[in-house]
């Protein structure tokens, strides 16, 4: 008997020790930091005659994410799986949507292969924890940029990929047209979202009393709305359009002509790795620039063969070494456009007129067409 006890104790101790090591394992970056100390990188500037660039001191954590992703061989992207047009699992079981395509573009920029990405569906509630803990490399899940999220949640927002505003959907036969009509009513909303807070803000400033019915995920929220649990449902307007397309009778629901908030939606990365932030940021800009210069996945090879404009040549990696500066290959933007497409292509594929989730481009047009999409110069 005693022998068994000793063996059991040893075994337990062994398992616990393993668990302790396992606990330390998810922070490999921490180990790297201690080994790395300070790396001094001298950059040779290819332009003849210019003085040598000053030594760049890389802060701790710099470049860790790209190294991890490359070593793993794929990108892990936290996405939505319940909002058609943004992040959704289609009838064939593939992920689709504008946020999903962004992940593919990032994989194309890093690996030259848009399929080297693993999509991990995260709920609104768990998304920030998943990003903080390193479970996902980047969060691309229609997430609203706000100050608290940018600071306290330990993340940085990459440039906005979709400008949105919060809306309100009601059954068409209800006769409700303004927020004031909802006095005393019940409103369905999803927990853990900025929407939940905006609703409270807007209704308080209008002096309208209401009862919230709050649910854990989008499916539950809209299922309850479809059953008539609430008089109205609120989320980002894009979300309303896309969810309406999967309601039992889409034509029986109208979206009120009110915009309750600003909702800039974009990808988010962890604090502490500026190189990774830059890569994520310039992937967005490469897609904007592709549209601006009329480079599509169909004509990119032609453009590359015949390009004369210097900025197009720099964008496609024919001139200069913009890609290398990001720690990628020089043709990263070419890969993005070739394998995934420019912003317009991605938009039309997911939210264009031919899709059930059609949303007019509005603010999400190029600055030349009255929108807000504006890529800084590629130089």
């Amino acid at each position, binding site marked *: 008997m005693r022998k068994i006890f000793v063996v059991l*104790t040893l075994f337990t*101790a062994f398992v*616990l020790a393993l*668990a*302790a090591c396992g*606990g*330390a394992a*998810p*922070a490999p*970056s*921490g180990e790297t*930091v201690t080994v790395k100390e300070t790396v001094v990188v001298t950059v040779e500037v290819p332009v003849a005659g210019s003085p040598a660039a000053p030594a760049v001191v890389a802060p701790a*954590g710099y470049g860790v994410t790209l190294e991890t992703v490359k070593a793993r061989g794929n990108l892990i992207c936290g996405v939505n799986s319940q909002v058609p047009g943004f992040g959704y699992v289609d009838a064939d079981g593939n992920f689709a949507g504008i946020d999903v395509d962004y992940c593919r573009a990032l994989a194309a920029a890093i690996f030259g292969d848009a399929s080297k990405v693993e999509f991990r569906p995260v709920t*609104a*509630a768990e998304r*920030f*924890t998943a990003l*903080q*803990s390193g479970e996902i490399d980047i969060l691309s899940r229609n997430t609203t940029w706000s100050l*608290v*999220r940018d600071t*306290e*949640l*330990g993340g940085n927002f990459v440039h906005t990929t979709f400008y949105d505003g919060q809306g309100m959907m009601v059954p068409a036969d209800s006769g409700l047209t303004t927020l004031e009509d*909802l*006095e*005393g*009513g*019940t409103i369905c909303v999803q*927990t*853990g*979202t900025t929407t*939940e*807070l905006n*609703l*409270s*803000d807007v209704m*308080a400033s209008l002096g309208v009393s*209401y*009862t*919230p*019915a*709050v*649910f*854990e995920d989008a499916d*539950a929220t809209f*299922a*309850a709305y479809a*059953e*008539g*649990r609430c*008089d109205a449902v609120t989320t980002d307007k894009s979300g309303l359009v896309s969810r309406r397309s999967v309601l039992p009778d889409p034509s029986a629901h109208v979206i009120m002509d009110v915009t309750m908030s600003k909702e800039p939606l974009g990808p988010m990365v*962890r*604090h*502490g790795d500026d190189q990774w932030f830059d890569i994520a940021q310039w992937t967005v800009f490469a897609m904007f620039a592709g549209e601006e210069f009329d480079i599509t996945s169909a004509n990119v090879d032609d453009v590359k063969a015949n390009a004369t404009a210097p900025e197009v040549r720099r964008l496609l990696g024919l001139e200069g070494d913009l890609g290398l500066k990001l720690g990628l290959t020089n043709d990263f933007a070419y890969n993005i456009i070739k394998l995934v497409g420019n912003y317009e292509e991605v938009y039309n594929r997911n939210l264009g007129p031919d899709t059930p989730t059609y949303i007019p481009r509005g603010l999400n047009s190029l600055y030349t067409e009255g929108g807000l999409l504006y890529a800084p110069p590629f130089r």
Partner: protein
Amino acid sequence: MSRDEQQKTTIPFWRDERILRFLGQIVFVLFVLFVGALIYQNMKAGLAKQGITLSYSFFNGVSGFDIAETAFPYDRNSTYWQAFLVGLANTLSVGVVGIVFATILGVILGVARLSTNFIINRLAAFYLELIRNLSLLVFLIFWYLGVFLKLPRVKEAIIWPGDIILTNRGVGIPWGIPTASFPTFRLILIFGLILAVIVFFALRAYGQRTGRAPLTLLWSILTFILVGLLGWIILPEKPLTLDLPLVKGLNLSGGKILSPEFMALTSGLVLYTAAFIGEVVRAGIQSVSKGQVEASRALGLNAFQTLRLVVFPQALRVIIPPLTSQYLNLVKNSSLAIAVGYPDVFYVSNTIQNQTGRAVEMISLVMVTYLAISLFTSLLMNWYNQRIKLVER
């Protein structure tokens, strides 16, 4: 060296079993502490790397979100701490309502399961087998989406006799609204309660002295009701006015409105837990040997007296410990409220965690909260168990 000398020599401490055992315990405790500290350090280092520190100071911040069901005044200007308390109050109300109804239904089911009436017996058996083999989460979602949200919309509300309104916005029941004389009435009720306790002890003493078996509990409850009724009639103004629920605008108003979330959660938990309590009660009753029943019948006790005076007191000893775990299960299972959108403590904490990003703080607080509720429940039940356990001489 002779045999005698060998036995006299003291055993060195590294072979002394008592010391070794003691040392083993110390080493084990140290090991556990070490592992705990390692995990804590790892967590702190991980958080520090992302510039996040542990602190509960955010609790005083303005929450900024609304909660549908609040036991006390709460709005978007209240603090996170108040939001947490609202959730806690909701959890407790589901727990108390759930335990009361699950116990009543469970005892009925347990007795029915042993009934000699074939139909009652089979029906109870079918119910117990069916419910005990379902997943609770599935069961709750069935009650929410399949039953309470399938009730008619507000405009086509079903009205049951007794002014009970059934809609998919909630179930409205008539409810009393306190008037000016309510405080006096409350005093009368307290007086009635004291009187009932006196009657209870007096009757028990009488029973022990004479050897008769008066219906102690029944009489004391009747006393309480009688005093209450008298107070109700004597007071010039009625202490409560009846408020009937009615459909007003988009929603129900007046009376007491029980939301579909609350109804789905409590009915799901009650019907589920009652099935387990039914089995516990059946096992308890069957644990009393048949000879006891036969002996009491031989003494001339009727069936009810046999059950009340002989079987139940003995069965309780077997019933209480597993019943305690069922109560604990019910309270802990109430955290599944998140699936049907009822704002219990876990659900509200989740919302706070989302809005503030304070995952570690909120999860640890919720864990401590459930631990405290469970320990308190067990404490009460253990105390009761001590009271009724077999006194062995």
